[in-house]
């Protein structure tokens, strides 16, 4: 490498260094200028958006906001009415449907209970009728037996009464001497038995 080239290289290095230095210096000076710019901008903004313009914008915004609110309120009211109406209709339909279903179930339950009660009453009546017939039959049999028993007792008692009456009425009227033939006849009939008993006993 020759001296020229070296010189050139060195010169380049120096130039670069100088550039850096200059750039460093320049950067140090810029914030001051931006602050000014901001200040100027604010000043311009204050100048453009002054109070009158702001009031105008505020009024317009208010009007627009009111308009939007009003429209939204109207829409909301319509939606609300519609929703209420639909809700009422839905509720009405649902309640009617539920009530009809419940009424059907209720009627079915009543019909079932009625059928059950009718069946139970029919069975009870049938059982009662059978029991009544059995009791009637038993009562008839008992009455018949009791009647027969009373008749038998009456006849036997009547026979006893007649016998007692005849014995009492006739017994005293028959003289013992008149009975002798009858008594001897009975003794004669049973003579052998008496003799046998006496002989065996002796």
């Amino acid at each position, binding site marked *: 490498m020759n001296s020229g080239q070296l010189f050139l290289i060195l010169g380049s290095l120096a130039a670069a260094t100088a550039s850096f230095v200059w750039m460093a210096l320049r950067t140090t000076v810029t914030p001051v200028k931006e602050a000014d710019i901001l200040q100027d901008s604010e000043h311009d903004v204050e100048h453009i958006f002054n109070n009158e313009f702001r009031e105008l914008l505020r009024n317009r915004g208010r009007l627009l906001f009111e308009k939007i609110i009003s429209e939204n309120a109207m829409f909301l009211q319509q939606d609300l009415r519609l929703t209420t109406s639909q809700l009422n209709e839905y509720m009405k339909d649902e309640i009617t449907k539920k009530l009809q279903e419940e009424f059907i179930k209720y009627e079915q339950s009543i019909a079932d209970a009625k059928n059950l009660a009718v069946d139970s009453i029919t069975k009870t009546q049938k059982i009662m009728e059978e029991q009544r017939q059995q009791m009637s039959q038993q009562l008839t049999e008992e009455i018949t037996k009791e009647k027969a028993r009373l008749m038998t007792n009456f006849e036997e008692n009547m026979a006893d009464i007649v016998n007692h009456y005849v*014995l009492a009425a006739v017994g005293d009227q028959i003289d*013992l001497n008149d009975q002798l033939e*009858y008594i001897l006849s009975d*003794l004669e009939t049973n003579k052998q*038995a*008496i*003799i046998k008993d*006496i002989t065996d006993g002796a």
Partner: protein
Amino acid sequence: MAPKDKKMVLPLSVMGKQDVGRLLREVETLNEFLRQSAIRQSDNTVKMPRTSRFMDEIVQINELNPLVEADRKSLVDFLSTVKTKAPVLHMSFNADPSPLFTQKLMTWLRKEIHPQVLLQTGLQPNIGAGCVVRTDSKYFDFSMRHHFTEKRSVLIQKIKGEK
């Protein structure tokens, strides 16, 4: 003195055991009296005791001499035998039987049933008529009450109106 081969009989008036017992006591009393008289001997004025109707009848029927000891002994033996072994019939009537009735009855009984049969009568007014005979082991009801009881079915048929 009574013939030895003749069997002694009871008079119809002697019906029951009490009569036989009374007769037996009377014969024994007579025996005792005659025995005491034989011991005394000296006293000839002793009067014979008065005998009962039963005694008179049985002595008469059996041709006995009460003064003969053998007759008295045979009578005592006979009465003792009758008292202990004679069959007894109990007969009940609806009224007290008259002596004539009992005599006829005893005649038949002694003739047909047993020559030494004794009879004890009773009273059952509720039998109506007829009699009830009871021996030692049997009972014979010949009463009207029994007859009615046997014919009760006929009476019941009549009460019912059946033919």
